[in-house]
C-alpha cells in the first residue's frame, strides 16, 4: 500500500509541536540530561543477549520477586517464585524494598554486587554471562511507578535494551527511554555473583562492601570463597585480607586465621584491628599467654585510638579466660 505524501510543512509542524511538548514537560518530568559516561555501551560487543535466562511472569505488584527469581535461578540457585516472594514482598507497600532484594540474595548464598552507575556496567556483566536486575521508575517523580526488571540484552546498533519485565518475557525498550527510567532510581543495578566469581568490572570498594555484608549476616563459607577470589585480584589489599582472616576465624579455621593476621602484621605492625583479632584467635586456640602478649603490644600503640575500648575489652576477655584455665 502506498503511503500518503506528508507535506514538508506538516512534518515541520509536527516536529515543532513535539519539541514544544518536550520543552513544556521537561520541567514537569524532572528530567536532567543523561551524562555521556552513563549512556556509553562500553567495550562489550555491540549486540548481546542472554537468551537462556529464565523468565518468571509477575503477579500483580510482584515484579520484585519475579525479577529476583530470574536473577537467582540464572545464577544456579534452586528456588521458586513463591519462596522468593515470601522473602521480599511487602504486602502493605505493594512492592519490594531494595534492601530486601540484597538481603534475599545473601540468604541464597550469593554476593549481591551493586554495579557502578552506567550502561557499560550492565553490558560488561552481560558479556560475562550474568543478567542484571535494575530498578526503574517508569513514571515520573510526582507520579512514580517503581518497577524491577532484569536486563538480559543490549543492542548498540538499534539502540535497544532487552528485558525480562513484568509479564513480558522479552520486552524491548529504546535505550534512551530505558536510561531515563533507570536514572530516576539513581541507576540502581545489582548482579548476583557465585561466591568465588569476580564482577566483570571489579571495583574494590563495591566488592568489599558486598562481601562484608555476607560476612556480617553469617554466611561465612560464601564470604570466605568470595574473599579468596578478591585476594586473587587485589593480593595486597588490607581489607580483603582482613575479611578472609575474619571468616577463617568464624569458620573455626584458627591456624589459617592466625597466619593471615601475622602476615598482615609483619608488613604493618601498627594494624591494631589485626592485632586485636589475632589475640582473639589465640584465645580460641587456648594460647592465652600469647594472646595477652599481643594485646599488650596493641595497647602500647593505642593511645588516642578509637579502638582503645575494644582492645581493653579483649584484654578483659583474655584475663577472665586465663584465670579460668591457668597453665
Amino acid at each position, binding site marked *: 500500500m502506498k503511503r500518503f505524501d506528508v507535506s514538508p510543512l506538516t512534518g515541520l509542524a509536527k516536529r515543532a509541536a513535539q519539541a514544544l511538548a518536550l520543552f513544556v514537560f521537561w520541567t514537569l518530568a524532572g528530567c536532567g540530561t543523561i551524562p555521556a559516561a552513563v549512556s556509553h555501551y562500553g567495550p562489550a560487543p555491540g549486540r548481546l543477549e542472554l537468551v537462556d535466562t529464565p523468565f518468571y511472569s509477575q503477579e500483580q505488584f510482584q515484579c520484585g520477586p519475579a525479577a529476583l527469581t530470574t536473577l537467582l535461578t540464572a545464577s544456579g540457585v534452586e528456588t521458586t517464585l513463591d519462596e522468593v516472594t515470601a522473602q521480599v514482598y511487602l504486602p502493605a507497600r505493594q512492592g519490594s524494598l531494595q534492601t530486601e532484594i540484597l538481603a534475599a540474595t545473601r540468604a541464597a548464598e550469593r554476593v549481591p554486587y551493586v554495579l557502578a552507575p552506567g550502561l557499560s556496567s550492565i553490558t560488561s556483566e552481560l558479556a560475562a554471562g550474568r543478567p542484571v536486575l535494575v530498578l526503574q521508575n517508569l513514571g515520573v517523580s510526582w507520579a512514580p511507578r517503581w518497577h524491577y526488571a532484569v536486563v538480559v540484552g543490549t543492542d548498540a546498533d538499534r539502540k535497544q535494551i532487552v528485558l525480562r519485565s513484568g509479564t513480558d518475557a522479552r520486552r524491548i525498550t529504546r535505550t534512551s527511554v530505558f536510561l531515563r527510567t533507570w536514572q530516576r532510581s539513581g541507576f540502581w543495578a545489582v548482579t548476583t555473583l557465585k561466591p568465588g566469581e569476580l564482577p566483570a568490572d571489579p571495583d574494590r570498594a563495591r566488592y568489599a562492601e558486598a562481601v*562484608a555484608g555476607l560476612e556480617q549476616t553469617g554466611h561465612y563459607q560464601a564470604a570466605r570463597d568470595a574473599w579468596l577470589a578478591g585476594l586473587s585480584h587485589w593480593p595486597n589489599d588490607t581489607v580483603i585480607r582482613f575479611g578472609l582472616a575474619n571468616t577463617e576465624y568464624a569458620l573455626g579455621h584458627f591456624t589459617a586465621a592466625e597466619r593471615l593476621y601475622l602476615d598482615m602484621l609483619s608488613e604493618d605492625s601498627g594494624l591494631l584491628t589485626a592485632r586485636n583479632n589475632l589475640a582473639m584467635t589465640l584465645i580460641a586456640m587456648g594460647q592465652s599467654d600469647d594472646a595477652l602478649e599481643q594485646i599488650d603490644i596493641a595497647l602500647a600503640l593505642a593511645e588516642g585510638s578509637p579502638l582503645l575500648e575494644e582492645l581493653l575489652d579483649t584484654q578483659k576477655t583474655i584475663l577472665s579466660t586465663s584465670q579460668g584455665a591457668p597453665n
Partner: protein
Amino acid sequence: MRSKMLRNFVVRLVSLSLLSLGIVQGSGAAMIGTQQVIQSEARDASISRVEAILARRDVAKQLVIFGVDPLAVQSRVGNMTDAELLTLEGSLDKHVAGGDAVAIVGAVFIVLIILELVGITDIFKAT
C-alpha cells in the same frame, strides 16, 4: 483494658530480655568485623551493637505491621546488615518499594500520556 496492659507488659519484658541478650553477647565477643573496618575507612560512624539490636527489633516489628508473615520476619531481618537496618529503622514507609503501583487521576493521566508519547516515561506498556 486489663489484657492490653498485660500485653504491653509482656512486650516490654520480651524486648528487655532481647536487649540484654544482645549486650551480653556484645561484651563477650571482641572480634572486629570487616564491615567495621570498611566503615572507618569510609569515615562513616561505626554502629554499636546496641544500636544494631534496637534497629533490628524495630525493622522486624515494622515488617509485621506491613503484612509480612511473622515466621518469615526473622530470616528477613537476619540477612540485613547493621547499616541497612539503621537505614530502615522507623522509616519502612518512606523507602522506595518497587511494585508497579501507581495512582493516576484526571489531568495527571493526560499529562502522562503526552510524556509517554514524547518518550520521557514508559508507564503504560508494561504488564
